[in-house]
């Protein structure tokens, strides 16, 4: 499912992924059921039962999993900062190449 680029920029260079607040997460796993891109991974037998396994699978600017989170335990980076960074990287790459 992973997109290798987003808006012409290598996905790996774009910081856009969910961050879990384990003090709020109640492991209801709604986000796991919701996300079709396999961003999350369940570790049923471990103390931390849920991790962000594939951050680069996360669709840039999509925050839908946070909307399904009852305890409000999922946050995303600042969208405007991400947009600016994408523009910067595109410029840098244009200048370099």
């Amino acid at each position, binding site marked *: *499912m992973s997109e290798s680029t987003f808006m012409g920029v290598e996905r790996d260079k774009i910081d856009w992924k969910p961050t879990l607040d384990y003090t709020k997460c109640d492991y209801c796993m709604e986000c796991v059921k919701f996300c079709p891109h396999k961003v999350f991974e369940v570790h049923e037998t471990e103390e931390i039962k849920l991790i962000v396994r594939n951050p680069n699978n996360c669709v840039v600017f999509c925050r839908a999993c946070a*909307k399904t989170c009852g*305890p409000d335990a999922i946050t995303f980076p600042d969208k405007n900062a991400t*947009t600016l960074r994408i*523009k910067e990287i595109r410029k840098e790459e244009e200048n370099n190449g």
Partner: protein
Amino acid sequence: MVEDYAILPCNGLDKCAGVISGELAKKLCEHNKNEIICPVFYRIAETKYNKIASEHPLIVIDGCQTRCASKLAAEKNLKISKKITITEEAKNNHIELKNSLRLQENENALIEIILKGLIKKEEKTTLISDETSFIANFEYEIFKNGKFIFRIPKNSEVYFNENDCWAYVLGNRARIGVTDYVQQSLSDILYFTPPEIGADIEQFDAAGEIESSKSLIDIISPVSGKVISINEVLEQKPELINENPYELGWIAEIELADFESDKELLIGFDKYFEILKKKVEETNA
């Protein structure tokens, strides 16, 4: 309130927001002849409530983003007329909810605010979109994959973002919407939350939400500017997004703030068509 509604609250008994949803439903029933659908009893005996839901427009009250009431409505194939999420309302009104299962000052204040808002919304004269002034003539290219047919506009005035939303740009205005990829992925769309008229949105901000029984997504605006009009028909007929997400299913109109800058991160038909094909093939691989 003008109409009599069927009201489906989440009524989660172990969470503050759930308790508020139940209380709000009771208060709403003090107006006109609104009727409550009990989510617990609905699961085991649906005949009574199916009748109520078929005879009245439905208000769904979710306590939190787990959206149990919305999911129940989707499961029962009920069309939602209005939707309220208590935790969102609390955030928007800067009210901090305590964790108590007994309603206190803040919780009661929130209920009153929501009630007032609902009544006011009913009484407010509907803003009519100036539809005639925006004439969009779409020309499409078609891509088929199995039983799925995707139409993509190929007009040069149409721009896309990689979040599968489009903007048809005319002068300093743009009409925005989602592409066939979104509506096909979501399947039957049951509810549309429009952006607020007059709101200033940045590029890639959410310009409303759409929800199906499968999923809930933000509409990621390809452009920045002020929301000057919304497609109000979608509030009662969200299925138009499935039928034609470009014409009858458009989302909103935006007075553009800085399209020259927005354009840097948008793509045209050729590029989007390639991306769409790749996504569809990966999804079905």
